[in-house]
């Protein structure tokens, strides 16, 4: 039987809630699978507001009432955000997890992943958000502490603004010290005989000044970096994605068939949800997806929500600008083996836009087809696991 685990830390607006509800319903009885998929959805951070928001609450109630679906809310964060009472009284099917509620949220998540990925020796967090501006690094520490407590080796892959975790000398006056937390985690894992594998993407670290060229040698060296995180090429980090262990991030999930990844390399689905240029999310997601495919991981890029703007119109980079033309990136990589592109039709329809004629190789997908991408029903033991990451 297939099972999926999702973690959402960021806001879930009504558009995402609608298509997510529809694919959950599609995976549980409308033809994509002979039997329902066991789905566990863990909510923390800003995602918790969607449980009480009138625009999204009905969909959560519909989803959480499905017998094969469990929605688990982080009790500590509910209390922090003043949501505890409304969720207890208004969301009868939502399971609340905390110290006084059947075990800590993060330990429950680790236990779920350990159960799905039978025999795994490690579990990883892909961190794309910077400390202090975002609370996601705090969740990363809680998750990886739970990983260590469960007897697994913690792995951390920092990417995009997540590489700011590297910065030496962090001294937040009001927040948990993320740099110190990572160093302590690496030390305690080593003491327990479980080596931590903590890495930062070299492209992202170079851009942010943590990996500087030594003019004497012509090679880059770490600058102002904490111990415990090694700067590595993205392809080395992505090589870990071929392994038989769970990887979570601020938004996304995994589907396994039977227990664990099995003999085949897990597939990857990258969901591009942001517009193309004003943040690094779209480029970062696309860059990671292409590199993964070139590293032998079968990868599907799905443009969805505001991510569909990457495909609309004809983009032209001004001569004095230094930025990748996202449409050109897509056009020249449609021949990369194991890489495919898809666009979510309801997202296009909602915005009243179409895709550029030059991008005809981007496949249009409905919610049912999206459900098949995410849950890929198939024979137990022969269908590869699927990793899903939202950018």
């Amino acid at each position: 039987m297939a099972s999926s685990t999702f973690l959402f830390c960021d806001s879930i607006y009504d558009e995402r809630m609608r298509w997510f509800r529809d694919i959950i319903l599609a995976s549980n009885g409308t033809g994509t699978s002979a039997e329902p998929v066991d789905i566990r959805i863990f909510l923390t951070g800003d995602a918790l507001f969607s449980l009480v928001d009138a625009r999204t609450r009905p969909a959560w109630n519909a989803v959480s009432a499905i017998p094969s679906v469990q929605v688990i809310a982080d009790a500590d964060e509910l209390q922090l955000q003043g949501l505890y009472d409304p969720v207890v009284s208004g969301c009868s099917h939502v399971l609340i997890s905390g110290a006084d509620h059947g075990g800590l949220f993060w330990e429950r998540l680790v236990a779920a992943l350990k159960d799905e990925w039978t025999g795994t020796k490690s579990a990883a967090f892909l961190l794309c958000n910077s400390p202090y501006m975002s609370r996601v690094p705090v969740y990363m520490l809680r998750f990886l502490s739970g990983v260590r407590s469960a007897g697994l080796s913690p792995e951390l892959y920092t990417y995009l603004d997540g590489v700011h975790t590297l910065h030496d000398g962090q001294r937040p006056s009001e927040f948990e010290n993320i740099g110190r937390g990572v160093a302590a985690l690496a030390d305690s894992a080593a003491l327990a005989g479980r080596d931590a594998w903590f890495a930062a993407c070299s492209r992202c670290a170079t851009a942010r000044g943590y990996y500087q060229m030594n003019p004497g040698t012509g090679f880059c060296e770490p600058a102002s970096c904490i111990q415990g995180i090694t700067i590595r090429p993205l392809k080395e980090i992505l090589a870990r994605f071929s392994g038989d262990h769970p990887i979570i991030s601020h938004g996304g999930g995994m589907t396994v068939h039977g227990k664990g990844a099995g003999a085949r390399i897990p597939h990857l689905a990258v969901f591009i949800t942001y517009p193309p240029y004003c943040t690094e999310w779209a480029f970062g997601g696309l860059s990671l997806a292409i590199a993964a495919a070139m590293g032998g991981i079968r990868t599907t890029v799905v443009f969805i929500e505001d991510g569909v703007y990457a495909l609309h119109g004809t983009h032209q980079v001004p001569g004095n600008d230094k930025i990748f033309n996202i449409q050109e990136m897509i056009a020249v990589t449609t021949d990369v083996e194991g890489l495919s592109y898809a666009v979510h039709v309801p997202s296009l329809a909602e915005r009243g836009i179409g895709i550029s004629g030059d991008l005809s190789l981007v496949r249009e997908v409905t919610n049912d087809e999206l459900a098949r991408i995410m849950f890929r029903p198939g024979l137990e033991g022969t269908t590869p696991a699927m990793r899903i990451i939202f950018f």
Partner: protein
Amino acid sequence: MSDVMDKHEPRDFTELTCTNLMIKLKILLSKLPTGNQVAFFATREQVDNTCAPFSGQGYQVSWKQEAENRYLVRIGK
């Protein structure tokens, strides 16, 4: 064969990842008229992993060491 990419001086691609350099080159070469070439600076790793494989795709690839871990690469069509 003439350089069309940069009429003044070759661009520095040494800080691109191998994947992003591959994408950049595919974009540049797709716009390159036959008989012309692109010239740029790359690292040894980029030369080996990304630039050299273009010779198997019908392009003429050459490089010259300019400094420690810095090569001037030319790819012609």
